Structures are given as C-alpha cells and as structure tokens.
C-alpha cells in the first residue's frame, strides 16, 4: 500500500514538473520529457514488472494532459519500462554512471517508438516532427536527471524490507 501511494505521489509530482518547469526549458524549440524517465528509473530499480507498471501509470497520467492520442504515452512507457527492467537487471543498479547511459539510449528509442506507433494509428505527422532534435534533447536531459530519478524511484518502490531482500529479481 505504501509503495502504491509513494509511486502515485512521484508520478503526480513528475507530471506537475513536466507541465511547468520542464515545459519552459525549451532547447531549440523542444521541451524535455521526464515522463519517460520514470519507467526507465523504475525498470533499473525494480525490474521489468515495476518498470512496466510505472510506465503505464505515468504514461496514462501524461496522456490526460496531452493533445496526442490517449494511451500512446502509456503504451510506450510500458514497453520502455519492461525492456529496461529486463535488459539492465541488477547491473545498472550497481555500476556508477550506467543509469545515465541507459536513460540516454532508452529515451532516444522511446521518442522514435512514440513517433512510429503514432504514425501507425493515423498520426503520420509525428514522423515529420524534428525527431532528431527531440530525441537528443529528451535523451540528454534524461541522462542528466537519471541519477536523481533512480534515487526517487528507489524511495518509492523499495521499502526497507524489500531492499534487504535484494530488490527485484
């Protein structure tokens, strides 16, 4: 119960930050997107299931405020969270700097995946957006914020007992 409440709290705060401070940080006309950072960090901290659940819930919350098709961010978040959790295993939790590298690569993939899935459901204009710039901005900012995000998600997803037991397997 405590994990669920903490996770919802983290998602709500991230959503608020995304739609205020982060939205104003325009780099070459593009805003960073920290909503992809949540499933990435959750996947690193808790594994594929936690990554997928946080990706789905965070994406769904983001979709509530976005003008793009409802559920698209949730789908990408779920896939990204699961993939990061499954691929990184316990390695990214222990190697310093690896969360940033994972966040950079996965964020770029997430942006591309979002555009391609959008095009598949009739939003072909997504492919004409400045994809390279969006991917770089989102990837670099998420890489910089990966450390704090992993720390926050560890607080949300890992009660002390779970940490003692060795976290997600």
């Amino acid at each position, binding site marked *: 119960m405590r994990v669920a409440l903490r996770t919802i709290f983290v998602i709500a705060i991230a*959503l608020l930050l995304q739609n*205020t401070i982060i939205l104003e940080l325009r780099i070459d006309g593009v*805003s960073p997107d920290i909503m992809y950072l949540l499933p990435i960090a959750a996947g690193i901290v808790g594994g594929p299931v936690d990554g997928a659940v946080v990706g789905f819930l965070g994406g769904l919350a983001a979709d509530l*405020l*976005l003008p793009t098709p409802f*559920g*698209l961010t949730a789908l990408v978040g779920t896939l990204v969270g699961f993939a990061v959790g499954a691929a990184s295993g316990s390695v990214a939790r222990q190697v310093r700097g690896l969360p940033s590298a994972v966040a950079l690569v996965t964020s770029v993939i997430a942006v591309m995946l979002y555009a391609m899935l959008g095009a598949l459901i009739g939003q072909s204009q997504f492919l004409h*957006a*400045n994809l390279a710039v969006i991917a770089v901005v989102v990837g670099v900012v998420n890489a910089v914020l990966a450390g704090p995000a992993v720390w926050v998600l560890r607080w949300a997803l890992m009660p002390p007992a779970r940490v003692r037991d060795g976290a997600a397997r």
Partner: protein
Amino acid sequence: MSIITLDETGKASVLTTGAKSVASDIYSPLRSGVNGLIDPIGRFFAGAVNYGSLQRENEKLRSQIDALETTHAQTAAAKRQYSELEKLLAINRLPSISGLDVVPAQVTAQDISDFASTITIDKGRTSGVAIGDAVVGPGGLVGQVTEAFHGAAQVRLLTDGKSTVGVSFGNHEVATLAGVQSGSTLRAEDLSSTTAVSVGELMYTSGLAGAQFPPGIPVARVTSVHSVVGAANKQVTAKPLAAMSGLSYVEVLIWSGSSS
C-alpha cells in the same frame, strides 16, 4: 493498445474526454501556482548572486526612476501587448466576424507536446467554447478548438501537421492550406498549375459549404510559388498572418457552422 483503439475509434471518447477534463481542472490551478512561484524564485537567486553590485547600483538606479516612469508606458512589453490587442480588435471589425459571438481568452500554455502544435486557453465549456470553434489572434486565424474542458480548452494551431483550412484568394480561387509539422509555414495542397497566385497574396478562409471556419478571416500570406514544368500542381507555401508563438490573447468564435 485497447485504450488507444477505443479512444481513436470514438467508442470511449466520452470517457477519455471526461477524464482529461477533470485532469485539466485539477492541473490548471496547480500549473498557475507553480509558474507563479518559479518567477520570484528565479529573481531571488539572480538578486542573491549579484548582491554586492546591486547595492552599489541601487542609488544610481533611484535617480533614474523618475525618468523611467515617464517612459514606462512605452516599454517593449507594453507596446507589444497593446499592438497585439489592437490587431485583435481589427479582426473583430471584419464583417464576417462582427455578427458572431466572441469569447476572449488568455493563453495559459503553448506546445505542451513536442509532437503537436497547440495552445491551451483559459476558457472552456462553461464559457460556451465547443470543439470545432475557430480561434483568431492578432493578425488572423490561429486554429481550431480540438478539446473543450470545463474551464479550459485546447486549440490546434494552423501550423500543426494535422491542420487544414480551406482558403480563397485572388479572383475567387480556392485551395487547402495544410500545416507543416516541423515549421512555421503552411503548404497549399492540390493547387492546379493553371491557378493564378503570386507571392505576397493574402489568403482568407473560404467558408464554402461544410467549411470548418467562417468565411473572410485572414489566414496567411503567400511566401513562395514554384511551378515545375509538366507538373499538374504548383508548390505554394504561405506564412500565417497571426504569430503562432508567444501568443497571449486570442478570441474563440462561436460559430454554428462549426463541426460541434
């Protein structure tokens, strides 16, 4: 994937629109509150960093206050706002708009997604705003309402990759202008190579049967015309007359011909 399918096919759009409306009502005041907090914090840190030099300059600046007060009204921001409102008033005087109900609105957010060109305005269903209503800004047409919430609405800008608008120009010529996702220009679609069009020409909403916008609203100015020998169509680009970035105020036209 089920959620996307239900939303895109319209089978659950009432549910998703309702959820979005509730989310908008909750987040709008939070967003305003946080934005209100950010500005003073930013100013505080800027002041703290430069405290020493600020003290020295304080006396000097005091002597300049009187002089500045007289020119205050002419600051760039004030002039820009004045010019914006003046242009908006000029749009109101157009014959095609003067008979319509108009809802003035303030822009609260712009481009909340990197994949869509939109603005969020502070007026929604309670003010009579509905999906499909045309939105005008200083200079001309800005876009169309795509989501109407309780106290806010989302407007798809002309430059969005999904936007299209029927326009008329010259000697009763008509065309469709479409947004270009990654730019601030519009592209004319299916414009026959025999159509007379020149750079600098103004384009207005056509208002033909089934049109999405009332007729006669200024939309764009032609910026380039390219004719390729043997091609059936001309390549024409146009620049919107209304500035699509940095919008502060817009007006929603309550128009019975809209798709709502």
